[in-house]
């Protein structure tokens, strides 16, 4: 399929190809409780990302020998739809998808009271329907909403956002083109009330100083995402309340 020519990603006024300033998030739309069968669910659009998350549990563990005696087993599957990317992706999970499933799981667990449900499992399914850079962060942002929607007791929500380096500039929340053609991308997951970084990865090359700035910039992004998550949860509960009233 045809590839677009590379053009300048950031103009002399510091404006990005999608019109954003360097420290601005892409538009985010969050919905909670949108799946009928899952115990909890959430949907996120962030830029052109479209991601659906469903949660089942706490439930019996299969196979049984995987059950943990003093806490719930958190399982996570991050999966991309074949049509979510430019070149069709085989539906079989890639090594990248398996790595992301692992780090997402590890980023969420500190926020969950896993000790409350020993010998059970909590199963998280993430389906990326359209990918536009930063899917692991957007998945995390939605996943903690889906967990909350499923009534899983949590210390706090997890917000996630990346910052990166593009044509020498540090920029928040890279889109696909910026991610692929930029110099670095640093995704961060953050639990506000614990001031805890629970996911931290990086591709690319940055100096120590830039690194410090990027970490702080990404956390600033998380700080902007967190209230949107709370709003989305509230909206769901108000909606439920009204439904109950009717």
């Amino acid at each position: 399929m045809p590839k677009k020519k590379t053009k300048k990603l950031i103009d002399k006024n510091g404006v990005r190809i999608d019109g954003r300033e360097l420290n601005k998030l892409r538009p985010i739309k969050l919905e909670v409780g949108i799946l009928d069968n899952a115990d909890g669910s959430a949907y996120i659009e962030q830029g052109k990302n479209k991601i659906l998350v469903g949660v089942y549990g706490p439930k019996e563990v299969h196979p049984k020998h995987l059950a943990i005696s003093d806490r719930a087993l958190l399982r996570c599957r991050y999966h991309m739809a074949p049509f979510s990317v430019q070149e069709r992706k085989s539906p079989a999970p890639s090594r990248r998808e398996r790595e992301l499933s692992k780090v997402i799981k590890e980023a969420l667990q500190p926020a969950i009271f896993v000790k409350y449900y020993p010998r059970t499992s909590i199963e998280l399914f993430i389906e990326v329907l359209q990918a536009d850079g930063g899917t692991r962060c957007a998945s995390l942002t939605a996943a903690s909403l889906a967990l909350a929607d499923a009534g899983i007791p949590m210390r706090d929500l997890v917000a996630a956002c990346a910052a990166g380096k593009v044509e020498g500039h540090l920029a928040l929340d890279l889109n696909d083109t910026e991610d692929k053609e930029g110099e670095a991308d640093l995704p961060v997951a953050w639990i506000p009330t614990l001031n805890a970084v629970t996911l931290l990865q990086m591709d690319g090359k940055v100096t120590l100083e830039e690194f410090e700035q990027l970490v702080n910039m990404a956390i600033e992004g998380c700080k902007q995402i967190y209230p949107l998550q709370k709003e989305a949860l509230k909206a769901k509960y108000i909606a439920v309340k009204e439904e109950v009233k009717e």
Partner: protein
Amino acid sequence: MKSPIIIRVKQKQIAQLVSHGKRLDGRGLTDYRELQLETGVVGRAEGSARVRLGKTEVLVGIKIEVGKPFADVPNKGVLTVNAELTALASPSFAPGPPSENAIELARVVDRGIRESKAIVLEELCVEPGKKVFIVFVDVYILNHDGNLIDASAMAALAALINTKMFNYEVKEGEIKVKPGYTPLPVKNYPIAVTFAKINDKLIVDPWLEEEQVMDARLTITTDKDGNICALQKGGYGYFTTQQILEAAKIAKNKAEELRKRVVKG
């Protein structure tokens, strides 16, 4: 999750109602649930559509790639239908390689498209025996509330109609992209209509709880001219000849209604 007892009571109720010509959700025996259709929902795909049939929700994305034709049909493009029963759609779906249900779903959708010649595969040949277009139809079940076949077939058709291919020319065996897009030529509009047999009566568009109580399932796919182009019986029960022929007539009429909705988009 609902308790199994509540489910069993409901199922009995469903069966009794059907035998009186009624359904739990108030529909007539040959009424479909509300159909919502949206196209172009996935920008990364060459075509896409989302169908909601009641609470059943299906997303179909189309990708087109260049590849090799099959050795026995060197001058035809390739159509590949794949179905993913995503684990978030139902507690009964597990992640992993496709189950027999996912395979059957994909193959029934495939047969409707292929046998009605909705896509003329000969037109997707670039260089006989060497280069053809492969049309990937990926059916993604997002919520399972019954009758996945009809919802998936409609979403697949709508997505194909929605599909745009980039323009190209062939220079020295290589495909060169030219500006602009052309719709994928869709020449026929197959529509699947699925029946459940409950207490010896036929109903269309069974929802999940009706499927749990049905004896057998029959899908009849008809094309724009009212021809039958695919059939699939499922489930552990059976049909009489009379029921099959009756179903065929209903399917033709129902399909006509649904086709209008899908084709207009």
